[in-house]
């Protein structure tokens, strides 16, 4: 169960590490409904982020659950800060384990929806390319035409929260410890093959129509996690709080950039600025 969708995520992380800074393409994955200026304010509920991290050490792969929990909290906090700057009103969603214990069917449905989101294959299609253009524009027609849906099961969650939209954020990351990076580098040099020597994080964000489960926008993003690379990284270790801060900052910057591009609008001022 826990392995579901791991391979595509690994691909995202590897692509992000390899392709960072090399791409000049723009990707359109937004339904016109979300682009059009609206008179009414749209209420959005953030669903609990799902983040999975693997730490690769000399002793093998490990799942640092304390880091995973902290990153999920950090991602939620960051999204709470960013989303209102794009004109949405945040409303709380009933999604904690303790709340859902009272309605097990809702719990199972939410788990299924989250699984479905992580399995979605966000394909893009090339629509035009000429030598005069700076890049290639890619469009996910299923989203722009309103054909990509994650199921009507989202409706009760939106209704309960009084939200028009639901936001899903899911991420996958790999943290290589210092020694493991050195070993990979040495092994890569010897074999002449490209070796993985960096820690990376890839995420996907979906904004879904709460009335019918239609995906209104979806994008992927990512950045390095090299600052988590210490051998004993975890709660209470030196540098951990700083690494967590950098994660929030990187996610914030990336989210702002991607949301601005996808929603075709600039973010409002940061609260308190």
């Amino acid at each position: 169960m826990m392995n579901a969708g791991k391979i595509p995520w690994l691909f995202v992380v590897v692509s992000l590490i390899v392709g960072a800074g090399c791409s000049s393409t723009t990707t359109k994955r937004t339904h016109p409904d979300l682009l059009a200026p609206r008179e009414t304010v749209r209420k959005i509920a953030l669903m609990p982020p799902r983040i999975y991290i693997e730490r690769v050490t000399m002793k093998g792969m490990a799942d640092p659950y304390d880091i995973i929990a902290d990153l999920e909290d950090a991602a939620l906090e960051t999204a709470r800060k960013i989303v209102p700057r794009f004109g949405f009103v945040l409303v709380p969603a009933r999604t904690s384990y303790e709340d859902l214990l009272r309605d097990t069917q809702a719990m199972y449905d939410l788990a299924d929806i989250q699984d479905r989101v992580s399995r979605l294959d966000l394909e893009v299609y090339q629509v035009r390319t000429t030598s005069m253009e700076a890049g290639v524009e890619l469009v996910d027609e299923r989203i722009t035409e309103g054909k990509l849906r994650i199921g009507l099961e989202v409706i009760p969650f939106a209704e309960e929260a009084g939200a028009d939209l639901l936001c899903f954020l899911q991420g996958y990351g790999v943290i290589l410890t210092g020694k493991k990076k050195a070993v990979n580098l040495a092994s890569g040099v010897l074999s002449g093959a490209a070796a993985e020597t960096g820690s990376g994080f890839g995420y996907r964000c979906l904004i879904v129509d709460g009335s019918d489960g239609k995906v209104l926008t979806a994008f992927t993003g990512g950045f390095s996690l090299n600052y988590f690379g210490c051998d004993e990284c975890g709660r209470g270790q030196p540098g951990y709080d700083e690494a967590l801060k950098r994660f929030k900052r990187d996610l914030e910057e990336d989210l702002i950039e991607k949301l601005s591009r996808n929603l075709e609008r600039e973010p409002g001022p940061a609260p308190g600025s």
Partner: protein
Amino acid sequence: MARGPGMKGAARAVVPAFVSALLIVAAVPFAPYQLTEEDRALLSECEGFERFLERRLAFYIDPEAEEYLNRIIERLSGGLEVPAFVRLRARLLRDPEVNAHAYADGMILVNIGIVARMRDENHLAAVLAHEISHIALYHAILHERERQRSTRLANLTSVVTGMPAETNLLHYAAMSSYNRKEEEEADIMAVRLMSRAGYDPAVVSDALKEIAVNLGEYRQVQPPIYVRTHPRPEERIGYVQRELEASKGRPVSYTGLEEREYISLTMELRRRACLENIDVYDFGTARYIAFHSLRIAPDDPGNLVTMGMVLMEWADNKRWMDHRYVKEPLEENPQRKECTRDILADPRNSPSFKNAEYYFNKALEIDPDCAEAHKQMGRLHYGRRDYEKALEEFRRYLQLAPGAHDYSAMRKRVEFLEERTAGSPKKQSPNEAGKEEEGE
């Protein structure tokens, strides 16, 4: 299967060799064990893993069934001196696979798939005895130590040879042999624990046969992950039989719940296991579970609806799966001929689909106000493109289940159908679109 929390932790310090030897050779449950710092880290990660599963909403919530499992664990471990760091307990995982996992801190994750698949309490006790044995022999801790040692070696080799540690076959071969040895020890100790608790120890062998039958059923779906780490069922049955012969003598003093009571107690869980099996396209297991529930309680509308759902989804899924076969010329693959013939005739009219209708109708005969039966009947009519009838059934469902969690989703479906049946321009159903994109 013995596991550390996600296969990590640490064990740099070496556990005294004589302790390992004692555990492995004499198979003494919960022999005195001195924890190292790394072991403590592993135990704390086990706790983290439990919280992680809660955050992922992975547990199956059924306090009554969980309490029942814990009673069996208590009986099996009664009289054993359990160390303070081990708290034996069962948690039910919403996973249809026929499997269970033991963790170093005493947590046993029992998949609902295995509870539903076992015939009675004795069979389930055999599974739990196997998992308790893993914990009692500190397999998770020792396994983790061995894994780390082997991975370190593989990493060092990679610096010399240039071969990445992750693809080092020697490392996998070493771990695989280690896993199999652990499984054998756990099977043998399970026989002893069953006997001590008064259960019939011969059931361990029967439970393994049951698992072998289940394994033989995996054709279209991936076999369970434990196949890679456990010896073959025939091999396991062989050494369990030898152990049974060696340990003859203790009378059977406790039989536990028999089939009828066991199935009745776990009825809700079995229905959920059927749905989860449908989700992973394991229709064979889903039908097996639904069939046995129905055998015990043939007039229970819930069981009738579940059986109908299994048959309906199976027929519907066959349509998608066989679509691939149709593309292949029949003469090139005669084995698929029969399969293909079914699809060429409309599967909506297939016997499975008709049987599904029979079960829904029977449920409605027994209880005309069974909301779930109306909902599933609506889905069946929808599948047959009979939208008028589907609409009628869905409306009835909404009347009967105003507090249902999927009420608003169903209302939306009804709105869509009303639009369609009113003759408005043809539009793709939200449900259809969702299915298409999810690749179902």
